[in-house]
C-alpha cells in the first residue's frame, strides 16, 4: 500500500470527493493563494499546503479564495450548505474560532433542529490546531472542547494519515456540520493510505494497542504520545489499552467503558486546558457508567490552566508531555485504597 503523509491524505480525500461530487467546494483564505496578484496562482494551497493542487484541477468556481473574513466565510458556507452545496470551509487556525463562532454554533449547528428537521447543513470546517510550534497565545490553541459541547456539530480529530482520509470523506458526505480538527504536528507524519476512497464511521474508537492494566484515552496528537509511552512501559510488563476516540462528537463511550471494565484504571490525555474539557467529560462518563470497575481514581493529563505561553520552556511545561502520561499511568497502577 502506498505511504502518504497526513497532508497528502487530507488533500486526496478532498480531491476525490470533488471529482465525484460537483457540489463540493473549498472556500477560505489563501486556499489557493495569489488571487489578484501578478505572480502564481495556487501559490499557497492553504498556509500548510493542504489544499495545494485543488485550484488547478477544479478552478476558481470551486476553490474560492476569500478576503480575511472568517465570520462571512463560515456563514456563507452554512448558507450554501443549506441550499445545495457541500462546502469545505477552511478556518486557518482553530484560534480564529473566536472571530466566527456565531455562524457555526448559533447558525450551522442549529438549522436542522430549529427548523423542525426541514433544513440541513452539510458542511465541513477544516481547521488546524495544536501547541508546540511556539505560535503563542492566539495561534496554538486546540479548542476541540468548545465545539464538542455544541449539539448539532460533529467533531473529528484524526491522529494519523489513514484516519484523516477516511474520516474526511465521511465528513464531506455527512449531512451535518462537521468540525474537522487537523493537528498541525501531524502534517509530515505518514503511514499506509489506500489510493481508493474509503470511509471511517463517526463514533467508532480505534484501539491502537490492547492491554489489561491501564486504559489510556488520548485526543488528537496526545494519542500518539500515549502510544509511545505504552510501548515503552510494555518492556516493563505494564500493559496499556490505548484508545483513540477519533471523533469527540459522537463519542464512542462504549469502547472506553468496555476497556475500563477490563483494566479498572483510566488515564485521559488531552492537550487542552483542564476545566470543562474533554478529559473532564470522559472522566464523568466513566465515573457514572463504570464506577464499579474502577480500581483507582481516574487521572487527567491536560495542559495548564493558562493561555499558551510563547517561550519554548514555558510552552513545554504548559502542554502534556510523555513524562506526564507515564507518571499518571504509574500513579493509577500504584494506587491503593
Amino acid at each position, binding site marked *: 500500500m502506498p505511504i502518504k503523509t497526513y497532508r497528502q491524505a487530507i488533500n486526496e480525500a478532498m480531491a476525490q470527493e470533488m471529482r465525484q461530487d460537483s457540489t463540493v467546494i473549498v472556500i477560505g483564505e*489563501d486556499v489557493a493563494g*495569489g488571487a489578484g496578484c501578478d505572480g502564481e496562482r495556487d501559490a499557497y494551497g492553504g*498556509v500548510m499546503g493542504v489544499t495545494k493542487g485543488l485550484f488547478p484541477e477544479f478552478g476558481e468556481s470551486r476553490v474560492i*479564495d476569500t478576503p480575511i473574513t472568517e465570520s462571512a466565510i463560515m456563514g456563507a458556507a452554512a448558507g450554501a450548505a443549506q441550499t445545495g452545496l457541500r462546502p469545505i470551509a477552511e478556518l486557518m487556525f482553530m484560534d480564529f474560532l473566536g*472571530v466566527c463562532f456565531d455562524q457555526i454554533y448559533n447558525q450551522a449547528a442549529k438549522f436542522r433542529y430549529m427548523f423542525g428537521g426541514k433544513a440541513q447543513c452539510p458542511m465541513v470546517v477544516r481547521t488546524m490546531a495544536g501547541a508546540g510550534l*511556539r505560535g*503563542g497565545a492566539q495561534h496554538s490553541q486546540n479548542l476541540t472542547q468548545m465545539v464538542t459541547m455544541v449539539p448539532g456539530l460533529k467533531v473529528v480529530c484524526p491522529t494519523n494519515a489513514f484516519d484523516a482520509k477516511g474520516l474526511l470523506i465521511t465528513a464531506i458526505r455527512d449531512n451535518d456540520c462537521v468540525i474537522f480538527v487537523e493537528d498541525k504536528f501531524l502534517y509530515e507524519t505518514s503511514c499506509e493510505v489506500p489510493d481508493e476512497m474509503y470511509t471511517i464511521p463517526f463514533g467508532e474508537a480505534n484501539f491502537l494497542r490492547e492491554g489489561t492494566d491501564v486504559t489510556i484515552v488520548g485526543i488528537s496528537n496526545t494519542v500518539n504520545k500515549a502510544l509511545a509511552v505504552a510501548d515503552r512501559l510494555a518492556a516493563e510488563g505494564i500493559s496499556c489499552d490505548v484508545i483513540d476516540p477519533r471523533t469527540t462528537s459522537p463519542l464512542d463511550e462504549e469502547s472506553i467503558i468496555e476497556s475500563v471494565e477490563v483494566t479498572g484504571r483510566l488515564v485521559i490525555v488531552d492537550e487542552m486546558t483542564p476545566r470543562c474539557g474533554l478529559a473532564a467529560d470522559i472522566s464523568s462518563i466513566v465515573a457514572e457508567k463504570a464506577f464499579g470497575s474502577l480500581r483507582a481514581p481516574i487521572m487527567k493529563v491536560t495542559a495548564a490552566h493558562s*493561555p499558551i505561553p510563547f517561550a519554548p520552556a514555558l510552552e513545554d511545561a504548559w502542554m502534556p508531555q510523555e513524562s506526564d502520561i507515564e507518571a499518571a499511568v504509574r500513579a493509577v497502577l500504584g494506587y491503593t485504597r
Partner: protein
Amino acid sequence: MSLDKKQFLQAYRTMRTIRDFEYRVSDEFGKGNIPGFLHLYAGQEAIATGMCMNLSDEDYIVSTHRGHGHCIAKGGDVGDMMKEIMAKQGGSCAGKGGSMHIAAVEKGMLGANAIVGGGPPLIVGAALSAKTLATGSVGVSFTGDGGSNQGTTFEAMNLAVVLQVPAIFMFENNGYGEGTAAGYAVGSKDIASRAAAFGMPALKVDGADIFETYETCKKAVDHCRSGKGPIAIEASITRFRGHFEGDAQQYRGKGEVKRLMKDLDCLKIASDIAIEKKLATKAELKKIDKEVAAYIDEAATAALAAPSPDVSELLTDVYSSAY
C-alpha cells in the same frame, strides 16, 4: 508644519532603527535563535514613524501581527523587544507573548495582535477612555489592507462614529494579505473611500514618504484632538519581505520585490529629500546609521546571552490575584 531638521533626524533614526531591527531578527531567525512565526515591518517604517511622532506616551496605539515597527516608533525598549522575540527573561512580555504580541503598555503601545482585525475595536475602547476621562489622548489602530475587510473593523469604525471618540484608523495598504492581493480582497478597491460611508473623513498618503506621512498623520491627530471624532487614513506601501519569514512569495510578480524595494525605500526617499532640502548632510545620516547599527547589535547580543524564562512563571499573571 513639515518636519524641521531636528524632527527629521529623529524620524530618520527611528526608521533606521526599525529597519536594522527587522533585518537583525531576520538573521537571528535564520540562525534558529527565534522561535515561532515572524512577520517583518521592513519597508513600512515611515508609516509607524510618521504617525507616532505625532503621539505622546499618553496616546494609545494597537498593532497587528507585524508589530515591531509600531512598538519601536511608540518608544518601546529595543533591548526588551529583542529579548521578547527571542523568548528570554527580561522580554517586554516576560517571554510569554513573542513577536506577534510585542507590546510596550507603559508607552501606550497596547499590543500587537495575532488576530487579524482584533485591534480596531480595542482602539475604540482606548479612545472612549480618553474621551470619558477627558485626558486629551487619542487612539490609533494600525490595520492592514487584509484586516480592513474584517467585520470587527467595520463595526469598530461605525461605533467610533456613533460614540464620536478620538480614534484614528490607520490602514497600511501594502498590497497583500498573505498571498492575496488587496486589489482582489478589498471589494471597493479603495479602503479610504469606505470611511465616508461610516460617517468619518479619510486621508490618503504615500506611505513611503516620511514627510507626507508625518503631515497627514498630524492632520488626523489634530482632527481627533480637537474633538471632531474619528478619522481614517490609507497609506500605500509595500513590504520588503515575505508575509512571514520563510514565505517563498510565488504570488508576487517577476522582479516585483526588487523593483519596489528600489522605488519605495522610505529611508532612501527620506535621505534624498533631506539632503536636497538641506535638512541633513550625508555625514549626519551616516553617523546615525552607525549609531543605530551599534545599538541594535548591543540589543541582540544581550538578548542572545539572556536566560530563558523560569518554568515557575507558567502560572503567573493568568489572573490579577492569587487563584
